[in-house]
């Protein structure tokens, strides 16, 4: 099963290496990872998407907690949460398909963020399913380049990570 895990860590030298090394060393899978400082610059927030059965996810969470620089770990998968990722897609913009590209962008509430004579670059944000659906729809129109971010996540309502 797919799990979205947020990890609050000390914003210290080598923390990312400790976490990614934990996943590779113990054979856990990382589907996506994102990391950036929080409001308190001494901490960073990581969001990790991983897959595994209950026993594996239990180990992932325990092993993350065991790292000295990890302050808190939350597995969102058992609660209502918001997940967002971003994709930038550069597509061939021929006179024949420009209207279709713009229509798709509008349907997915994306934005054209760069235009050249032959290309459009589109930005779409959303949960994994939405971003993937957009990419699938735009693919037949001719993707030249794609850049997808890792996911970030947050609980709905009052609950916070740290």
């Amino acid at each position, binding site marked *: 099963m797919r799990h979205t895990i947020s990890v609050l860590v000390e914003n210290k030298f*080598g923390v990312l290496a400790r976490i990614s090394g934990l996943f590779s060393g113990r054979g856990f899978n990382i589907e996506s990872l994102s990391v950036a400082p929080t409001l308190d610059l001494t901490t960073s927030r990581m969001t990790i998407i991983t897959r595994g059965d209950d026993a594996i996810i239990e180990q992932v969470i325990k092993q993350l907690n065991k790292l000295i*620089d990890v*302050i808190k770990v939350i597995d969102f998968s058992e609660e209502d949460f918001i997940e967002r990722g971003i994709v930038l897609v550069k597509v061939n913009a021929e006179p024949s398909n420009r209207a279709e590209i713009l229509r798709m962008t509008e349907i997915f509430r994306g934005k054209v963020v760069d235009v050249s004579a032959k290309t459009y670059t589109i930005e779409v944000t959303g949960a994994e399913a939405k971003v993937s659906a957009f990419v699938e729809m735009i693919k037949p129109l001719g993707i030249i380049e794609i850049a997808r971010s890792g996911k970030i996540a947050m609980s709905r309502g009052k609950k916070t990570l740290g």
Partner: protein
Amino acid sequence: MEYTGAEIFVKSLLKQGADLIFGYPGGVVLPIYDELFKTPKLRHILVRHEQGAVHMADGFARASGKPGVALVTSGPGATNTVTGIATAYMDSIPIVVFTGQVPTALIGNDAFQEADIIGITRPCVKHSYLVRDVKDLASTIAEAFYIATTGRPGPVVVDLPKDVLLAKTKFEYPETVELRSYRPNTSANKRQIEKLAAALEEAKRPVLYVGGGMILTNAAAELKKLAHTIQAPVTMTLMGLGSFPSLDDLSLGMLGMHGTYRANMAVTHTDLIVALGARFDDRVTGKLDEFAPNAKVAHVDVDPTAISKNVPTHIPVVGDLKDAMKKLNAVIAESKVDWKAKHKPWLEQIDEWKHANKLEYVKKTNVIKPQFVVEEIDRVTGGDAIFTTEVGQNQMWAAQYLTLKRPRTFLTSGGLGTMGYGFPAAIGAQAAFPDKVVIDIAGDGSIQMNIQELGTAVQQRLPVIVAILNNGFLGMVRQWQQLFHGNRYAYTCMESQPDFVKLAEAYGALGIRATKPEEVGPALEQAIAARRPTIIDFVVDREENVYPMVPAGSPLNKMLLA
């Protein structure tokens, strides 16, 4: 007043109560060595190879219960420590390894003797630090010792760039360490303890399965009290040996691949296995699906990751083992169960197993059996000694035939299985207890992996005894080749051996050889009386095997008995 980083290093160690360093100097750590020169109360033992320094710090820690300290230079000095660090990591041993590093401005430039030791050791440390500012040095050292010794202990690496050792700042050593991201849960939950006690009250065939955690937390007295009160049999892992007297009627000895018949049968038939500071290692469980198939599992461990990692656990208890044992004993004291009557049939069954297949070997008069050497070591020392082992047959015979009475008297590389561990570990233990008899039970293969430390033992006048069970083979590998690879002894025979007696003499140590059974006891007595580093070359039966043996991947009750 301001001090250099090197001065702060020395002051911090003294504040920490560390008065012994195992080390090897080099370019970038020269500022520290200059301070050590001026600080005789901080004793330094010069090793011959950095791996030896870390194993010595480890042996010191296992024998004394205090954290061990190693100090090495950058680059090759640092990379040579890796096996020692991994050994300590696998066995949860508190050590702090200080490595020199090239100046911060050169880090990442492939400078002379530069190695990314933080990166290299990341998977085998509890934690590590690269100190980039002298202002952080004292607090980092305090944190390193705190992390190494609390919770589940383990090795911590502190990397010290040369410019940090030369820079100056004020010296303030923190009195206490508080880390928001590291608060090991040491207090065992009362309700879980009550559940465990209730399970013990219900069980008909309980087994206490004890690991290294019992020794790390100094809880042997609590274990004895529990076992005797509830009249439950105790089996120990390799790492747990010494935590319960092996001659106690309730002792089953070691379990697992080379465990006793009765221990493996008891674990196979138990209805409640209580893991106390043990981690269900594959060498212990055999085939996992058939391990303790009828048992409820209770598991007490300070490390939550150890619980339910290999075996699903019905009653998890997270906490310091000593705390948990005290609480459990308190709850048990209130119990109205007649334990003796309840466990009588179970203990009778165990007694039957005990007599059905004892640990034994065929004694001979013309050739020394390796098991006989271990029995003689046990007899001559009366068990009043610290034993270390190398890895392989020597280790298993030592585990089987020594009658250990006390914790911290059997030091062995259990998790990593490091050949070359025993001799430097013995030196470390001897440094902690100069007056005790310390014996490394070795093989002729293993001893050659760190034989250079003979120079250290002689220089420091540490009277460690090395008892080589010399069969001219890498014996355990040869045994597997015999049993599972059609007798094809591929590269397990060391056809060229040094003359170990002459080798000892070349180093200025005492060398003794024994080739007949009647020479074994006198050789040991001579070595113990000599009070100087000694190698005894016991020429033993070449193709003796370790039995019982559970072949890898088999269930524990499918033992080869001979």
